[in-house]
């Protein structure tokens, strides 16, 4: 691994100062993505600012009924939190569907948000990749692109965002709190991750000197009845081909509340607004679910390797909504 200086600040002020004065600095959470990428020579920080000593590891109640999740809360701890399990079951389900128990014990919420794509050409420094080296080209376009994105793609990059947790956060309108020497700002999750356009190297709205301090979940009553469903090549310990985070409320046969987001299909966790619109106020049933899913996937831009994802995403949306509409208790 390329040598770097290491600091472990004890408070947030010192942490944001450390990156502000060191242009080549990067924050380190659990290390499960950054250490891997540094070893591969893809990330090359001069200074690593270890944030795991910061007091940002609690889940606190918000006055409006929501939750404030510290950026250093481990993925396993968040999955076990009784409030998250009761009010937002899709969040622990997404977390527990991701990585392995060992990795979840290490991984932090902040690191999960900022984890980078698993595109194999991004990982292989001998391949052309616009994300790694802007202007170099994209070997995935005509290569092995079974795992790649089908929504919001560009001719520069078709990488998919790998996080499960973020898909649930997108469905819930989470807000990311970021801190730098310039102050604190709040970034809605839908604006946090970026589509590639012609700058696939710009992945988030976060500046390189901004520290994620927390993620806030607003009160979302409909989410008490929610599901995360993940489709992958093996039963566990694999990234999603397609995943669905869904919440559904049905009264007298009509959809009175719905939240829907997709994973594995875009460079960001994909909030399925078109499908939500198609569903809201209409009948809750197989036909309506299928039409809503088709509306969302209508803009899919597929390659030979990942063309199957369009149908798979539609079927997974329908199956998840069906499950939510027919089960008595979706906890």
């Amino acid at each position: 691994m390329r040598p770097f200086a290491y600091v472990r600040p004890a408070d947030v002020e010192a942490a944001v100062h450390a990156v502000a004065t060191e242009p080549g600095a990067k924050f380190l959470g659990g290390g499960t993505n950054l250490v891997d990428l540094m070893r591969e020579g893809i990330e090359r920080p001069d200074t690593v600012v270890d944030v795991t000593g910061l007091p940002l590891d609690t889940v606190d109640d918000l006055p409006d009924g929501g939750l404030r999740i510290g950026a250093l809360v481990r993925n396993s701890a968040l999955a076990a939190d009784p409030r998250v399990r009761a009010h937002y079951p899709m969040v622990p389900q997404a977390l527990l569907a991701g990585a392995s128990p060992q990795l979840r014990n290490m991984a932090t919420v902040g690191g999960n948000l900022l984890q980078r794509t698993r595109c194999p050409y991004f990982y292989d420094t001998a391949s052309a990749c616009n994300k790694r080296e802007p202007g170099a080209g994209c070997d995935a376009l005509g290569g092995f692109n079974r795992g790649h994105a089908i929504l919001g793609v560009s001719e520069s990059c078709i990488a998919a965002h790998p996080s499960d947790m973020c898909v649930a956060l997108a469905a819930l309108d989470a807000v990311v709190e970021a801190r730098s020497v310039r102050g604190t700002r709040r970034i809605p999750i839908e604006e946090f991750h970026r589509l590639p356009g012609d700058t696939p190297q710009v992945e988030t709205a976060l500046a390189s000197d901004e520290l994620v301090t927390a993620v806030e979940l607003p009160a979302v009553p409909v989410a008490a009845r929610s599901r995360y469903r993940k489709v992958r090549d093996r039963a566990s310990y694999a990234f999603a081909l397609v995943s669905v985070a869904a919440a559904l409320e049905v009264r007298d046969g009509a959809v009175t509340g719905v939240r829907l987001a997709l994973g594995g299909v875009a460079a960001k966790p994909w909030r399925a607004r078109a499908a939500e619109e198609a569903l809201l106020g209409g009948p809750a049933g197989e036909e309506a679910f299928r039409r809503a899913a088709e509306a969302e996937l209508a803009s899919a831009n597929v390659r030979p390797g990942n063309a199957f994802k369009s149908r798979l995403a539609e079927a997974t949306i329908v199956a998840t909504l069906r499950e939510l509409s027919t089960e008595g208790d979706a906890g």
Partner: protein
Amino acid sequence: MTEIRMKVNGADESLDVEPWASLLDTLRERLGLTGTKKGCDQGACGACTVLADGVRINACLALAVQYDGSEITTIEGVDHPLQEAFIRHDGFQCGYCTPGQICSAIGMLAEHAAGMPSAVGATGLTEDEIRERMSGNLCRCGAYNGILDAIMELR
């Protein structure tokens, strides 16, 4: 170089490490504890699983400096009935994944006792639960059935 102190298998260790040294390489190459194995060095196999303050982690993705002040347990420091159970149930063939499997299983039993949920969501440690909770440890020899039986005996 950064000086770190760790308690490894009960012994106090103080050593100067490069910040980029992984916990796995530090255990194996600096402390001579080669029981912990390197399979993939990228978090994808679980062969490097150790316990840090009782919690199972992948030592290959851990920087040693991050574990300054921690208590680390590797297979060399384990004395647990699971070891006999693995022998009784043929829980291994080549044995390469075994140190990681056993450290992981010890961490898993503690997690389950503390109420950590899993994707399976069964009540009690059923076979499905154990398979899911042990899915972070791959076995190239496919000794999964023996591993499962050994853990079932101890659950």
